[in-house]
């Protein structure tokens, strides 16, 4: 499988959809509670003066994440269809 883009690589103003959250259990849970589940559309809305952390808008809220944590969130590459089987899972 080819290297997938990460949330941390998103530039200011760029938008993408989340494909997978790979973070360790506690952070993963927190991010999901905030609504960062597969398929969620995320926009990077700003970076702090040092470039880390960065602010991400999703589901109507803005959440700041450190780069190391944003590394753990995989994004769909540009052309990929966001809601393929992997994301929807076993709906049936």
């Amino acid at each position: 499988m080819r290297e997938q883009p990460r949330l941390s690589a998103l530039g200011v103003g760029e938008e993408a959809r989340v494909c997978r959250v790979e973070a360790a259990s506690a952070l993963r849970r927190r991010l999901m509670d905030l609504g960062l589940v597969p398929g969620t559309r995320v926009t990077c809305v700003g970076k702090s003066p040092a470039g880390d952390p960065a602010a991400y808008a999703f589901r109507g809220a803005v959440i700041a994440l450190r780069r190391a944590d944003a590394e753990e969130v995989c994004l769909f590459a540009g052309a990929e269809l966001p809601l393929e089987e992997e994301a929807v899972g076993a709906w049936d």
Partner: protein
Amino acid sequence: MGLTAASTGTGAVEGKWVLRREHPEDRVIALAGNPNVGKSTLFNALTHLRQHTGNWPGKTVAAAQGRCEHKGRGYLLVDLPGTYSLLARSAEEEAARDFLCFGGADAAVVVCDATGLERNLNLVLQTLELHSRTVVCVNLLDEAERKGISVDLAELSRRLGVPVVGTAAGRGEGLEELLAAVEDVIAHPPQAKLPRYLPPIERALEVLTTQVSGRCGALPPRWTALRLLDGESSALASITQALGRDLREEPGIARCLTEVRAELARVGLEGELLRERLVSCLIWRAEDMAHAVVSSVQADSHRRDRRLDRIFTSRLTGIPVMLLLLAGVFWLTLAGANYPSQLLSQGLFWLQDRLSGLFTYLGAPQWLHDMLVLGVYRTLAWVVGVMLPPMAIFFPLFTLLEDFGYLPRVAFVLDHAFQKAHACGKQALTMAMGFGCNAAGVTGCRIIDSPRERLIAMLTNSFVPCNGRFPTLIALISMFFVGTAGGWGESLGAAVLLTGLIVLGVVLTFWASRLLSATVLKGAPSSFTLELPPYRRPRVGQVIVRSVLDRTLFVLARAAAVAAPAGLVIWLCANVEVQGGSILQHCTAFLDPLGRLMGLDGVILMAFLLGFPANEIVLPLILMTYLSSGSLLELGELEEMRALLVEQGWTGLTAVCMILFSLFHWPCSTTCLTVRKESGSWKWTALAWLLPTAVGMGLCILTAALARLLGLV
């Protein structure tokens, strides 16, 4: 000092709730909601209490209780800490979940932010699973209107199956309707429409719920089955504790659980993926609902917020704007406080003369007059005269910034430095709270999840000056470095110097945090998420009234309560003679060598020691002591105060060292007791006392030695 649960204060946030019902028939209402949705404002509006509010997540760290009445019936409201979910593991979330599950609330109100409803609906859905007697309160409707966002409350109510009430708690709108809806759900429990999960999960739940029914006490069977399926240990531990037995150990349930797990594993739903799908279903449901009920006239209703964020947090402007704002607040404080300060001290000393007159008229003995008027009253007058004006300006200004939503941006900008110090970015928030009161800052550290990082934040909180120390710093800067005339130009100079001191405090906070995480509190920085909430228009009138009445007067009363007895003690020490000298002379003579080494003198050190209960009284105590041994002056203005200090041998070095030691010395007694309470350990309390003291003494000794070496004094 190992990092055990007992030593790091994880035991500090208890899941135990003591309800203070005034009447046995009072209804208990739990107020739940995401952080920063105006829950405390709503709570205050309903109960007429004054829980502190502010636009940043985590403001409410402990649950407040308050009573209100509606149509002759009493309600006990419990303001729960803000949570995004009831599933995660932070102390606040566990506390909120445990109260909703086992606290015995008659009904729950979930407060939502109308400007970001989608994110809030996750918690609503989770609460419905626990409590069908739930009212959804869509708050901040006024903010939403301003942003061109409207919410179809009737449709939302239809989709959730429970009442939905719109409010604008800041303006007191919708409160009657809310209480009426609460009464309604208690009288007639609504048919809440519970969220549905993926079909295989639903099939598993159905079987498991049947097994659990009748064995889970007052807990909803479906919710209990969900927790068993999810397997999250803290929720299961709470359930076990509430029921007095572990459901997983009951043969029927254990067998059923194994079976449904195996069934789910066949379609690929196991472990983390199963948990992820459980959460995702709620999120998708919330998304669906939000799309149906929220409409926005503007394409991007948050454009203004993003524009402000660019000013407050970008690489070019983030830090300069922060420093400018800080200096601006100080400038307004200094320039504005100058004239009222003079007026106030003139008034207070006029009153002193009248008091003396009264004592003479009554024929009271001289010693009684001296003790009460020169001892108690004068110390009190100095504390009030020096502190009140700057506080009455600084507090409202700071609260306005807080209300506007600026503090989380500070945390965002400063996080990189905290990250380098292996600490949590939220420490910037607790640091900002420390400006008001270090004890409040230490309590605020509960918003930091990692026990290690929470301790670092608690131990370093007193590196920023609290309001008790600001007036001392301001007075010293004015007297020795920029002149006491108090013009706008001089105020500007003083504001710049004061900002520099705060920057020094913040830099040393980073340094001390790094030191702690390299030694006694070793560890890597943990992950964290920080919400940057929407900017809100500050409620100017309310902020001024609240911050003057609550914070200023409260802090002043505390200082005065300490100042009066301290004045008495000093007067007695100065006037009781033992072995050819007053007690005071003996004490200060003993402390003098150490004081000199630090560029200070024995009197100053003595005042700092006596000021342990409240930092506000340090400067008045110094003056008091000098006056008792020197010539009596009529003190009113800074220029005269300066003359007295210079007469007692003060130089620029003394002032610099005094400023440094004011910034960095032991935290006041209240702060120490708070560290003890929050950390649950005297050892950490001792370190919280020692760390700033060692830093301050070191800096003073170094500065004094350097100045003497260079022949500056």
